[in-house]
Structures are given as structure tokens and as C-alpha cells.
């Protein structure tokens, strides 16, 4: 038995089985939750590459799986990331059951995660680009439920993600071609530009991000949230892994400066557009862009505290987007429009969902006591000490996003003229309250949670050992 079989092959196989069971939504959803939780527990408990004693049975969990001469490697360094990604999936699949998501969500969701883990595990790196593209293709049925017309946002998601793949493959060919000293010196900066373009398209970096608000607006927010939570986080980890493997990239201060400036541009533009946004589901898209901007900012710092802040920022990011998507999903399921013209009485109809929505948005904008605050504060302090000229722009973007959230708050508290019926179900309220509780717990006791998540940086060991 090898680790890639457990964390890649089994989820793919189970995804196919769940596809056969797709009309039994509760069974397929329950299996997806159970399997994801089990895989997260196994990732936490089973050391890879060491002999394991289980009762009277002794076995060793191998690191590699060979397919057509190429290997999929999962080592102990990847285990914290596996715990994070499969725990996240278990939570999203549980939420999907509560929100009664469509029948293809669980089967394809499971295959999406397996493909992402495969992308992180495959060696050499250039194959990761192909697996990310497969992930994108597998996420199409998650985003477009059967019976619905495909919208422009999904089409553009597919187009932009597909356009990114060739750039990564070309850059992977240059950087993965053995000894870089034998490559013509002029080629390396060009390859770095190509690599940057590829990641810019994948991560929906400015100016390639206009499809993100379109996607969150035109598809079910919960499906969009699932894809936009897992995909960018995994791509960021892939990027770190790649930079970690290529010494020439690690040693390039210019590259990290460009990453930082791109992050600033994303935070500023997302914040400014968010301030003028009248549609909450589009604001969700700008929240994703803002989070990616902050992630790039912390990576661009290129020091240990910066990388730690990047890793620590993943938890509030995933939690904030989950609660936001869940709250918007509750509204969407009851055909409640989310533009400012239809907000009157919404708080009476969906009190818990509205509180959760506002708290999630405040957390993303870095409000004190909420999950996003400690990481935002620390990241801004680090940035201010390294790039004092940029901090004003970042604060402007953050302030713009906060303005957008305050506008949401002002609209959702408008009470209806007559008494309104509460339309939320008990399970929806329960999971929303749970999400809000964690938003506060992460904000009040950040050390407890963030110290465990920073171990995911082991994915890029060379990057850290050099700092």
C-alpha cells in the first residue's frame, strides 16, 4: 500500500462509485463526508515511509506510485496539507447535504480534490499543469447542475484556466529540464515571465479576474465557493512547491517584488470595486480576489514570517469563504435575490444567514475579534516594515472592501413593513451558527489554530530552509 493510493486513487474510485449512486443524494453525500473525514484523520495519524504497527499487523506506507514511468510522491511533508484539504472537503460536503446541493456535487467534488492532491504529488512538476486542467474540467459538473443553462461566468472560468495550462507546461519544460546552468541565460527570465502568466491566469490575478464575480453571481454560490476555495489554495501551494524546487527562482528578488506588487494591485482593485458593488453575490467574488491578493502579498515578503502568515491566512480564508458561501446558498435556495433593491425584510426572513453573511464579510475585511483579524494585522505589520510605500495602497483596498461590507450591513437591516416568516431550516441555522462560532474562536484564540496550519509549509522545504 502506498500513500498516493490512499489519498488519490481511493477518492477518485469512490467519486466514480458515488456517481453511480448520484440519485441517492443522502447516501452519496454521507459517504463523501465520511471518506473525506477518514482521509483527514489518516493523514494526521499515519506516518508515510515508516513501519506502522496496527494491532498484530505490521506494514509500511510507501511514498511513491509509478504511472507510465512518472511518479506520484506523497511524503510526510505533504501530510499537513492533506489534513487541511480533506478536513475542508468534509466540512463542504456536510454543508452541501444541509443545503441540498445537486446530485453531481459530491461525486465530482471528491474527484476534484483527488486531482488536486495528484497535482501536488506528481513529479516532475510539469505534469501538475495537466492535472490542474483535469481538476478544472471535473469541476464543471460541480458548478453547473443538471437542468441549468451554462452561464458566461463558468465558460470564462474554463477558458481562463485552460489558457493558463500551456504557459505552465512551457515554463515547466524550461525549469524542469535538468541542469539550469546549461540553459541559455536569456531563456530563464523569459521562462519566468511565462510561468508568471500561467499562474496569473490560474489564480485570477489582475487583470484576468473579471470572471470571478461573474462566476459567483451566475452559479450557485455554494458550488462556486467550493471551487474557489480549493482551487486557488492548491494552486498557491503548487506555486510555492515549484519555486522551492527551482533555485534560480528562489534567488530572484525581482520575482518576489512582482508577486508583491500584483498582490497589492489585487487588493486595491478588489477593494475599490467592492465599495461600489450593489450585488452581494458579486461581492463574494471580490472577497476571493482580495484573499488571493493578501496571499500573494505575504508570499512576496519572501521571509519566514511572511510564509508563516501565508499559511496561517489559509484557515480564516477557508472558513470565511465557507460561511459566506453557506449564507448566500441559504438565500439562493429560497430564491431570495441578493441585490440591494431586494433587501427589505431580508433580516426577518433569514436572520441567522444574514448575521453569518455579515460576520464572514467582516472577517474577510479584517475586523477585530473575527478570524481574519490576527493574520491581516500581522501581514500588514510585516508589509509596513518591508515596503512602507505600499502599505497605504493596501489599506485603501481593505478600506474599500470594508465600505462595501458596511453598505451591505446598511441594506440588510432594513425591516419589512409587515411581519415576515423565518424561512431558514434548523440544520441550516445549526451549521451557520457553528461557522460563526469558529469565526470568533479563530479570532479570539488565533495561536491555538494557526500554529497547526503553518506546518503545511513543509510542502516547500527548500524555500523555508533558505530563510
Amino acid at each position, binding site marked *: 500500500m502506498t500513500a498516493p493510493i490512499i489519498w488519490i486513487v481511493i477518492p477518485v474510485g469512490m467519486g466514480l462509485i458515488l456517481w453511480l449512486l448520484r440519485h441517492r443524494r443522502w447516501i452519496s453525500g454521507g459517504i463523501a463526508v465520511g471518506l473525506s473525514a477518514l482521509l483527514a484523520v489518516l493523514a494526521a495519524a499515519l506516518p508515510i515511509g515508516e513501519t506502522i504497527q496496527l494491532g498484530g499487523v505490521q506494514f509500511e506506507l510507501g511514498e511513491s506510485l509509478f504511472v507510465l514511468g512518472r511518479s506520484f510522491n506523497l511524503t510526510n511533508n505533504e501530510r499537513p496539507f492533506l489534513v487541511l484539504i480533506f478536513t475542508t472537503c468534509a466540512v463542504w460536503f456536510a454543508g452541501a447535504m444541509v443545503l441540498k446541493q445537486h446530485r453531481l456535487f459530491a461525486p465530482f467534488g471528491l474527484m476534484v480534490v483527488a486531482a488536486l492532491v495528484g497535482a501536488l504529488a506528481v513529479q516532475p512538476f510539469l505534469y501538475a499543469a495537466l492535472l490542474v486542467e483535469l481538476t478544472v474540467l471535473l469541476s464543471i459538473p460541480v458548478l453547473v447542475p443538471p437542468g441549468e443553462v451554462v452561464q*458566461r461566468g463558468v465558460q470564462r472560468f474554463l477558458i481562463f484556466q485552460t489558457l493558463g495550462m500551456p504557459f505552465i507546461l512551457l515554463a515547466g519544460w524550461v525549469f524542469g529540464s535538468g541542469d539550469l546552468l546549461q540553459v541559455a541565460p536569456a531563456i530563464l527570465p*523569459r521562462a519566468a515571465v511565462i510561468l508568471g502568466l500561467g499562474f496569473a491566469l490560474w489564480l485570477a490575478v489582475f487583470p484576468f479576474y473579471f470572471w470571478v464575480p461573474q462566476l459567483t453571481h451566475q452559479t450557485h454560490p455554494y458550488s462556486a465557493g467550493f471551487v474557489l476555495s480549493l482551487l486557488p489554495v492548491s494552486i498557491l501551494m503548487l506555486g510555492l512547491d515549484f519555486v522551492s524546487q527551482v533555485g534560480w527562482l528562489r534567488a530572484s528578488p525581482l520575482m518576489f517584488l512582482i508577486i508583491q506588487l500584483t498582490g497589492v494591485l489585487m487588493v486595491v482593485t478588489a477593494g475599490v470595486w467592492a465599495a461600489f458593488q450593489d450585488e452581494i453575490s458579486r461581492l463574494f467574488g471580490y472577497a476571493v480576489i482580495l484573499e488571493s491578493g493578501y496571499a500573494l502579498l505575504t508570499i512576496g515578503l519572501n521571509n519566514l514570517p511572511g510564509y508563516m502568515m501565508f499559511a496561517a491566512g489559509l484557515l480564516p480564508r477557508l472558513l470565511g469563504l465557507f460561511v459566506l458561501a453557506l449564507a448566500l446558498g441559504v438565500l439562493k435556495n429560497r430564491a431570495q435575490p441578493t441585490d440591494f433593491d431586494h433587501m427589505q425584510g431580508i433580516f426577518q426572513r433569514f436572520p441567522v444567514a444574514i448575521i453569518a453573511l455579515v460576520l464572514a464579510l467582516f472577517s474577510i475585511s479584517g475586523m477585530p475579534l473575527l478570524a481574519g483579524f490576527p493574520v491581516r494585522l500581522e501581514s500588514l505589520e510585516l508589509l509596513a516594515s518591508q515596503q512602507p510605500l505600499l502599505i497605504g495602497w493596501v489599506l485603501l483596498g481593505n478600506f474599500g472592501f470594508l465600505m462595501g461590507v458596511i453598505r451591505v450591513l446598511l441594506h440588510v437591516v432594513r425591516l419589512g413593513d409587515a411581519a415576515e416568516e423565518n424561512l431558514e431550516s434548523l440544520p441550516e441555522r445549526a451549521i451557520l451558527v457553528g461557522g460563526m462560532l469558529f469565526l470568533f474562536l479563530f479570532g479570539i484564540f488565533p495561536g491555538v489554530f494557526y500554529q497547526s496550519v503553518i506546518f503545511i509549509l513543509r510542502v516547500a522545504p527548500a524555500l523555508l530552509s533558505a530563510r
Partner: protein
Amino acid sequence: MSLQTIPIILLILSSFFLVLFLGWRYALLALALQYVGVFWLIAQTLPIGLAAVKLIVGWMAGAVLAASQLNLGEELPVSDLAGRIFRGFVMIFGIIVAFSILPAAEQWIPVERSLLTGGLILLISGLIQLGLTGNPFRLSIGLLTFLAGFEMIYAGLVSSVLVVGLLGLINLGVGLAGSYFILSPSLEESN
């Protein structure tokens, strides 16, 4: 005229066909021609078996799309003469751009000239198709064209069986995703 010019001409013609004629039958025919051109050029660098994989997978993806469009029972929206003239000029401009950037591309990517020429033509043709349509069938054809262009260039750089296999899987995936886009509204409602 060398033998390598014929597939390039085939690719240019198929690109014009794909952009000018919007009916799914014309598109399928042009796509089939396009993959013949791709096969012809790639067979110069990759073993015939691997090059044939690209031909067959491309045809299969096109067939999946056409079958879905046929199942839907709706004709694609047609274009008037003015639209065709506009798209024709855009494509002419695209071909000029492909030949203009060819010398610079040769500096960046060390592959055979004919592969690079054909690849660039298809890359630009794919981008033009993607930019000019919102129709799921046309969009999928545009993505397949773009990917075919890239695969031609990449075949000159990497000749791994796994890469060819995964790219084939991606082409089929694009065909299936396009098919899902086309048929999704007519599928049974979820839940």
C-alpha cells in the same frame, strides 16, 4: 512548395472555415481537417502512433460535441454577410499576426519552423473563436483549436507518452465538458 506547406495550408483553411461558417456540420468537417493537419506535422517529430493518438482523440472530441448538438435538435445561430466579412478580416489579421511573431517565437521556443507556424496559427485561431462566441458548441471548438495549436508546439519539445496521454484526456474532457454545456439544460433537474 514543400511537403510541409500542405498541412500549414490545411490548418489555415480549416481555421477560416471554423470562423466563417457557424453550422455544426461545417465546424465538424473543419475540425476533422484541422486534426489531419496537426497529425501530419506532429508525425515529423513524434512516433506515428503517438501522433495518431492526437488525431483520433481530436476527432472523438469533435464527434462527442456534434452528437450532443444533434441530440439537442437545435441549429446553431447563423451569421449574416456583414458578420462573416468581419470575422474573415479578423482571421486574416490573425494569420498576419501569426506569421509576424514567428521569428520572435523561434527565438523563444526551439522547435521546427513548420510546427511552430502551424501551432501559432491554431493558437490565434482558437483565441479568435473564443473571443467571438458565447455558444457552448463554438466555445468548445475554440478551446480544442487552441489546445491543438499548443500541442503541436509542445510536441516539438516533449515527447513523453504520459504527456500525450494526459493531453488526450484533456481534449476528451473539453469535448465532454462542451457536451455537458450543450445538453445540461435538457437534463433531468437535480435533487
